[in-house]
């Protein structure tokens, strides 16, 4: 099959400050594409041809190519990871497109995801959010018996649904407001349904939301584009979980104490 690609290319003189704007959509025609190729393999073929012609290959992120690492997200025809639901770009195949299709490929667009080059964006903002509280800070010691802490199956399922997040950023890319609430909601929901995670629930909700706001993501307006775009099909229920947890933490927050710490010594 034959495809016509329109890909966001950085201009040669881009500086670190203007990467997001300084570029344009460039048209490439690619022939002899197999319908069984993955989307990334198709880009590999394009890059080989570009390299042979002495042109700069298209920069794109990829790692495991089996749908679990979360590296390979690009915007395909306005949809994160392309037209197939519940699928990462690497697991998308060219059979999802018609012969002769015009395909638009762009990087994630968000102030919190600065463009590094072409289709590659910097998702370190997600890492900083995770560092602010998406973990359990107790010393676990040796692994205990699996049945030592009973967890009801429905709770385990809810936590697991949230834990399937691969941090690819498709939710931010799809959101009309570039909000990260599905991602951050998944972190909150991942822990709050489990007894180990409940110990620090107030602090976690507060810190995660503060870190998210600091990165300059937008605000959720409940349009649920994120849920439709998520390759792991994480439900927007996790956002309601986060809203509830944040409200809970704000209500339970104690005013700062006037007492002197440590006594008179």
């Amino acid at each position: 099959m034959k495809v016509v690609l329109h890909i966001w290319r950085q201009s040669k003189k881009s500086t670190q400050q203007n990467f997001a704007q300084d570029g344009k959509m460039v048209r490439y025609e690619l022939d002899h594409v197999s319908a069984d190729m993955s989307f990334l393999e198709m880009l590999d073929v394009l890059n080989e041809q570009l390299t042979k012609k002495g042109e700069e290959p298209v920069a794109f992120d990829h790692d495991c190519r089996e749908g679990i690492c979360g590296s390979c997200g690009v915007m395909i025809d306005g949809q994160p990871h392309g037209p197939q639901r519940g699928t990462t770009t690497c697991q998308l195949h060219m059979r999802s497109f018609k012969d002769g299709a015009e395909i638009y490929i762009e990087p994630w667009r968000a102030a919190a995801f600065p463009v590094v080059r072409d289709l590659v964006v910097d998702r370190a903002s997600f890492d900083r959010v995770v560092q602010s509280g998406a973990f359990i800070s107790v010393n676990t010691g040796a692994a205990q018996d699996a049945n030592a802490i009973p967890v009801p199956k429905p709770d385990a399922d809810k936590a697991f649904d949230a834990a399937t997040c691969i941090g690819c950023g498709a939710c931010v890319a799809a959101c009309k407001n570039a909000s990260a609430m599905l991602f951050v909601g998944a972190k909150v929901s991942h822990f709050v349904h489990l007894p180990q995670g409940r110990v620090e629930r107030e602090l976690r909700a507060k810190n995660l939301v503060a870190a998210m706001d600091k990165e300059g993501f937008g605000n959720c307006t409940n349009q649920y584009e994120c849920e439709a775009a998520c390759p792991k099909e994480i439900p927007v229920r996790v956002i309601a979980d986060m809203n509830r947890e944040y409200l809970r933490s704000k209500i339970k927050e104690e005013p700062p104490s006037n007492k002197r710490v440590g006594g008179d010594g």
Partner: protein
Amino acid sequence: MTWLFQFWRSSIGGKVIMAITGFLLFGFVIAHLLGNLQLLSGPDKINAYAKMLHDLGPLLWVARIGLLAIFVLHVATGIRLSRANKAARPVPYAREATLQATFASRSMVLTGLSLLAFIVYHLLHFTLGVTNPEHYARKAAGAGGHDVYAMVTTSFSNPAIVAAYVVFQVVLFFHLKHGIQSLAQTLGLSHRRFMAMIQKLSFLLAAVLAGGNAILALSVLFGIVKAAQ
């Protein structure tokens, strides 16, 4: 105060303020419609209702100032959030697709600002008597005070005024249709079974409220409610 300010500034705090003020304004729209439905029972009922509201005196001002505060908070927070949303995506996509967002959800800012313009007109029209002073000036026989029935029916005998009111009820329908179900999600209420129910209820309530308001104006225009002489 710092606690409250921090809460208002946070993304979720802002959403919660939108949800709570939205819920209160939604309650006002219900009460407003229920009160005005008395138009259907003739001049005595609606004029007595208007007089009762006016006779509340200071309480009426408490209600008015409270309502205004809620309204200002709703609009100001909405503008703050939507500006932050614009800033969060400085470079738009060359190709954009919409996967499952409804028209209503995507036009909340537009419908909200249109409603703001409409409410200003509505207050100038019926509360302050600026746009149609000749309708506003009519006095009720005997009981004294404004003849609300005459004011409303003479206004709604004018097809242009009715058209404006009906158009804005359509806008109100879209704003409420997304708003009612959205506030449930924002306040942390999400459940696989109840979400479908809440969405249907949201549609139904929005349709009943907007439809009820529109029917009042239309029933005067089509002579179902007799215009005062």
